[in-house]
């Protein structure tokens, strides 16, 4: 580690740093050195004793958008306060730290009051990209990635613009936090070094057993993490043994494989990309016994879809669909705050996914940073709906970009008990706009439904009709499978009508006939006989021939003398298509022998 002037890198940061000598003060060691030996948590325990009892003020509850052509920031308070705009070139994603917004661009780094957008300080940087920042109310610590080389720069500036420390290292630093004039700096993915801002020395270090590149304060606690959350508490001394207070999210399949947090060691571009739109949000909460996930909810976005999950097993709790892609957000106490690319900010209820409030940054944004700390989301959600209905709306949405999420949500829908789920599957399977990627899944799910017969029957009532612009027949096959399995005799007439619809697929006819073998009643005898005669010798393929067999079976089961006779005759008739004849022979063979007529009594 070198205490360096940013000016030494050809930059023009002036510093008042006076403690720029080497390390070696008692209990201190070379910052970010790799020959450090694990001290078993002694040094970090000392830090905990020093600052663990400190009160951490809540950070600003704000939304910051990168607007224009990445040449301005737009800020808005979540408590209903006004908006502000700060015109400045932006070359990296801004960071909210405490009550400060830190941004970079135009060759300088600057700090603004988060609530007003007023400039606190600005320093030239020569254009090195901003990584992260922390703030304790008096000092802001900012980390940068070195331009064109491995390594990082750490800069500590008081709110009045005085540089108190400026460190340069070859190590990849992450996003820092500040507490009690100590900077907590994650680096190399596994360490957090505590830098004493008074001396610039590393006062402590802790080795973490989870990928860690970020430190931040939230909910009155200090947290480290990237793939999970590690709390800075009395257990931090055992972190190297994997016994720190840790909370992680359950593993589950999510569309687009989103991340909980981006790496704090890599600069984030000023314009949101797919990783911002496909994202996980959660908020850790400190508890007496360790840490939990706030509200037992965590969230994921996939473009304009937001999803809420149970913290325990990751069970889907709700789905919400916005108008445009979400580009930023944050989990809060009571829900989720999301910001979309049109600059709309929505607060969603943790329990239901219903909308608690909506606000507007006033213009479209290239990227958006949401920070919620002290504010609790409250109110009655405006559009709370049952999960099946929410899923239904999302999976039937005609948006090719959402197909991957829709496939996953379709599986959720398929397991929902609600009849509405059946309706959604029916709608999806018969809508000509449904993506081919979804159609197969929807049909398969529909075939496995065991409720919602009313919706299925309503679908069967519609047939292909050129003049009425009904150009896609209903999903007869899957519906027939479901109705057959449910033994839904009320659907027999509708199923029979589909035996004669040339617009239905051969498989549809096959499945309809198979269902009729289960549910047909005497009222269907005429249709069954008609179909049997029509196709027994002219079935164009095995599917239709199989339908002939099923219909023959139905005729026999219904003990229709005419039908049974037709089946017996067809089983012997060489003009009957071979596929059907072989199987009809088997049916006839299984029939009980016809009782012989009683012999006349001899007188």
């Amino acid at each position, binding site marked *: 580690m070198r205490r360096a002037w940013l000016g030494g890198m050809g930059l023009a940061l002036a510093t008042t740093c006076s403690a720029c000598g080497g390390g070696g003060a008692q209990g201190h060691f070379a910052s970010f050195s790799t020959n450090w030996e694990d001290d078993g948590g002694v040094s970090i325990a000392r830090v905990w004793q020093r600052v663990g009892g400190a009160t951490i003020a809540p950070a600003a509850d704000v939304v910051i958008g990168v607007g224009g052509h990445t040449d301005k920031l737009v800020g808005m308070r979540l408590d209903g306060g006004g908006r502000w705009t700060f015109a400045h070139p932006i070359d990296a994603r801004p960071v909210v730290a405490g009550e400060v917004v830190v941004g970079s661009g135009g060759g300088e780094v600057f700090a603004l009051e988060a609530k007003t957008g007023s400039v606190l300080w600005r320093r030239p940087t020569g254009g090195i990209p901003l990584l992260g920042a922390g703030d304790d109310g008096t000092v802001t610590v900012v980390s940068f990635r070195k331009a064109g080389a491995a390594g990082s720069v750490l800069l500590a500036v008081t709110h009045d613009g005085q540089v108190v420390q400026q460190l340069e290292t070859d190590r990849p630093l992450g996003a820092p936090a500040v507490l009690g004039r100590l900077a907590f700096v994650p680096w190399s993915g596994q360490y957090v070094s505590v830098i004493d801002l008074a001396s610039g020395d590393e006062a402590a270090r802790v080795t973490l057993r989870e990928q860690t590149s970020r430190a931040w304060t939230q909910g009155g606690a200090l947290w480290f993490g990237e793939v999970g959350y590690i709390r800075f508490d009395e257990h931090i001394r055992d972190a190297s043994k994997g016994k720190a207070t840790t909370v992680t999210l359950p593993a589950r399949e999510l569309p687009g494989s989103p991340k909980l947090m981006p790496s704090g060691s890599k600069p984030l571009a000023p314009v949101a990309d797919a990783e911002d739109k496909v994202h996980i949000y959660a908020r850790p909460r400190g508890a007496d016994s360790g840490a939990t996930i706030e509200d037992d909810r965590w969230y994921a976005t996939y473009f304009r879809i937001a999803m809420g999950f149970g913290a325990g097993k990751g069970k889907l709790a709700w789905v919400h669909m916005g108008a445009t892609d979400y580009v930023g957000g944050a989990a809060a106490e009571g829900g989720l705050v999301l910001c979309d690319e049109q600059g709309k900010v929505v607060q969603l209820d943790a329990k239901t996914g219903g909308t608690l409030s909506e606000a507007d940054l006033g213009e479209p944004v290239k990227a958006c940073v949401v920070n919620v700390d002290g504010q609790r989301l409250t109110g009655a959600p405006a559009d709370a709906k049952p999960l099946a209905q929410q899923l239904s709306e999302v999976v039937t949405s005609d948006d090719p970009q959402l197909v991957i999420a829709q496939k996953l949500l379709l599986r959720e829908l398929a397991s929902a008990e609600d009849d509405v789920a059946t309706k959604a599957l029916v709608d999806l399977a018969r809508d000509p706009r449904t993506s081919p990627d979804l159609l197969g899944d929807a049909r398969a799910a529909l075939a496995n439904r065991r409720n919602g017969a009313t919706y299925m029957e309503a679908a069967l009532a519609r047939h292909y009709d050129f003049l009425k612009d009904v150009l896609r027949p209903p999903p007869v096959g899957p519906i027939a499978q479901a109705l057959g399995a449910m033994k839904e005799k009320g659907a027999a007439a509708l199923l029979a009508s589909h035996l004669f619809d*040339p617009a239905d697929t051969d498989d549809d006819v096959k499945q309809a006939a198979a269902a009729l073998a289960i549910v047909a009643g005497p009222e269907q005898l005429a249709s069954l006989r008609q179909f049997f005669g029509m196709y027994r010798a*002219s079935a164009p393929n095995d599917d239709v021939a199989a339908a002939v067999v099923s219909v023959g079976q139905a005729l026999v089961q219904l003990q229709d003398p005419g039908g049974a006779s037709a089946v017996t005759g067809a089983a012997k008739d060489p003009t009957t298509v071979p596929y059907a004849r072989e199987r009809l022979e088997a049916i006839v063979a299984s029939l009980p022998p016809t009782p012989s007529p009683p012999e006349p009594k001899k007188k």
Partner: protein
Amino acid sequence: MQARSLVAAACAAAAIIAAAGASEAKPKPPVADAPRAIPLPADAIKRLRSGDLDQIKSALDDVRTSARAGAPAAPAVAELLAHGLSPVLTQAAIDTLADTEAEAGSEALSVYAHHRNVELRRAAVQALTRTRGAPAVRALRAALSDPDPAVRGLAATGLGNMRAKDAVSDLFVALDHKVAEAAASIGQLCAGSECERLAGKLGSVPFDVVTSGLDQVLFRPATDVSDDVKVKIVGRVRELGTGEANRFLRTVQDKWPKAWSARVKQSIDQGVLATSGSPGSGGTP
């Protein structure tokens, strides 16, 4: 068979015009150039019910040859269709019912108008236009919505030939769905305002399609379509002021029977004159 029925339809149309030309008020019945009927062989029906494929085939041939005289065999042919035949024999049975022109065959044909084999479906729809009756009209109206364009076209033509006036509204929907054959049928069937509605399609539906129907309207007798309607139709065509309008009116002018309405004739003449300078009109009359 298809060619045969189309020729028959064309002859019928020509006969209507010829008859109307002779006397607009009382058109004479068309003089059919019908071949002498060959009696149905006495054993034909027995052979149809024999269950023997060769006998069935020969009997179907005999019934077809007997044409209308084969009508008594229609129920037996319908029974065969209900029992089920190979595709080839099914086609033969359908064609046979068509040739008998027996309404008794319409119910069986209606079922086959929904067959999955599109060739059989087309044959059944064509046959229905000859066997006629309420079941045939029902089946043809349904066939306007068939997935196969040829079936839709045949159904539209059939409804016109069958004088199924109740189907005019369906035919307008079909015309709006690009079933071009519907125009001529509407022209055969429309009442006054319906005929004007057909003329109103000029500009939104291809000219040739609409005029295939307007031609039918103009040559229907005055007892069927009033002169007022015909004059309005001529006026609508004239308003187009195009070469194709001129050519159409000239064709009508050439065919217009001398004994028919002078008022309509005058409007046609004026229409021809007014459109004669249009590009592509082919010069002054």
